[in-house]
């Protein structure tokens, strides 16, 4: 589905990503972990098109997308959920979703409702479990609920690949769990491919799919989290860090 081969990204002298090969299958949830400065975010930005790789290629279903502008990549179905929540605080959950759902229409056409989009907005609210909160101002939502709303707003644009940047940052255990569960069945139900950059190992366990460990811009290892946990290398790399 999404593939990076030999991706290199240099900032002047510094090599942030150093020849990463990495391939995600349709419907797979891939977590990318690694100590700070491992190049996670840089890789991420290369995938979304925010950064152009110095060398190497990025393929979406075998088609080159590296070097394309962000919104084009977005239109091809690669959606990104930012770490900092950017929901419209003053609007209700439903309004937020409707705004997201109607994005990209010409202004005058916005005067009439597009049933399909409206229904989709509500449908997705169901999907992420916000159906009870439709009338609530986003500003009044709990942290976890805001994250759900974010995800929902991304989903409304019907992406094929979903890139999530630390979706559970600063969440309580319960919130983290519910998000994990949510993401799982989204992936299965809509055959969504997801790439998640995450620190929280508990979350990663809950998601529990393959993990790519980055270190110094290189892929240190790749595998199921149980293997990764057992790996001494990873231990060494993460020495002092949560694992």
């Amino acid at each position, binding site marked *: 589905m999404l593939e990076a081969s030999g991706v290199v990204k240099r900032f002047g002298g510094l090599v942030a990503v150093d020849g990463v090969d990495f391939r995600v299958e349709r419907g797979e949830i891939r977590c990318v972990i690694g100590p700070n400065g491992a190049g996670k975010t840089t890789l991420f930005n290369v995938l979304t098109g925010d950064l152009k790789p110095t060398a190497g290629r990025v393929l979406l279903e075998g088609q080159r997308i590296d070097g394309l502008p962000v919104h084009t990549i977005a239109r091809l179905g690669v959606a990104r959920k930012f770490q900092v929540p950017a929901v*419209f605080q003053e609007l209700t959950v439903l309004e937020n979703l409707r705004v997201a759902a109607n994005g990209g229409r010409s*202004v005058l056409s916005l005067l009439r409702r597009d049933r399909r989009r409206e229904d989709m907005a509500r449908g997705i609210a169901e999907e992420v479990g916000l159906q009870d909160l439709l*009338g609530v101002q986003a500003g009044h939502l709990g942290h976890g609920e805001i994250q759900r709303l974010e995800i929902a707003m991304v989903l409304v644009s019907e992406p094929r690949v979903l890139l999530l940047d630390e979706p559970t940052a600063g969440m309580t255990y319960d919130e983290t769990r519910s998000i994990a569960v949510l993401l799982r069945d989204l992936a299965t139900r809509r055959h969504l491919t997801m790439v998640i950059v995450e620190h929280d190992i508990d979350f990663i366990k809950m998601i529990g799919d393959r993990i790519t460990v980055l270190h110094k811009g290189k892929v240190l290892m790749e595998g199921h989290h149980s293997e990764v946990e057992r790996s001494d290398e990873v231990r060494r790399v993460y020495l002092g860090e949560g694992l």
Partner: protein
Amino acid sequence: MAGRGEAAAVRAARRVGVSISLLRWAHWGAVVLAAVALWVVPLFARSYFIGLLGRFLVFGLAAMSLDLVWGYTGQLSLGHAAFFGLGAYTSGLILAQTSWPFLGPLALVLGILIPAALGFVMAGTLFYGKVVGAYFAIITLLVSLILEQLAISMLWLTGGINGLYGMKPLAFGPLSVDTLNEAYYFIVIVSVIAYVLARLLVESPLGKAMDAVRVNEKRTASLGYSTAAVRTVVFTLAAALAGLAGVLYVPLEAFVYPSQLGVGFSTWIIVWLAIGGRRSLVGAFLGAFIINYGQSLLSERLGRYWVLATGVFLLIVVLVQPDGLLGIIRDVKDRLMRVVRGSRAGA
């Protein structure tokens, strides 16, 4: 802990959700009631009171127009009277100085289109040039000043401060809006229609986009909206609405004055809306009525203190209750709901 917090949020949400759908029904019901009430007034009220009520409705329309711009898209127009006055002068001049065919429809349509055109040009040039917020507000102020200046000094056309009068009745084929009552009924009909349309607008996807642009322009753009386009369209519609209000003013008052273009009147529109309550459409009418009626209860001498008080009101609206009177009403409602909720929780 947080889990419980969320659960609470959900419970709260359910109630709010309910109350919202209730409100929506209550709202449309109220609109119908109001329309009926307005319709029967002439049956028992005096001509003087009818004229007065007509004015309040016209003022309310002007304030509602500002609400679309300021309340929803968050752009303050300090010179909104410019569009009102332009509408009034356009239709007034047509009715007073021409004898074209289809006089009535022409006066009505041009009275709406010409202000709309001005609004479109202003919004187009400014918003697409990233001139927003304070700078935009200042420009609107200046435009209002210019137009009043011109209306005063173009004696040959507008009659200067003498004002414009001697308009022919606003006639649409067989039915003509001439007498006070005719003018009043015309205003009621148009006001109700305008309100419903405005309501549909703010409920439409565009309406949500308006909110989004106000709350967070960048994010809105990132969702694929042209924020400049949204603002321009809305401002143009608002200008048209203000123009319409101006047109309605002509048969009611039978006079048009430069001051109806000016900053003073613009400020009144702002006051009505801010005090009535922004982002509600209803607040516009509420404010227009309360403020004017409030003044009326005071003597000439106290009237001045009332003007002074409006200054204080504006400060209160900004510092304490951004949603004006409606906000206060809503707070009371919420408090009641909280009481109810509390008792339930206790049970």
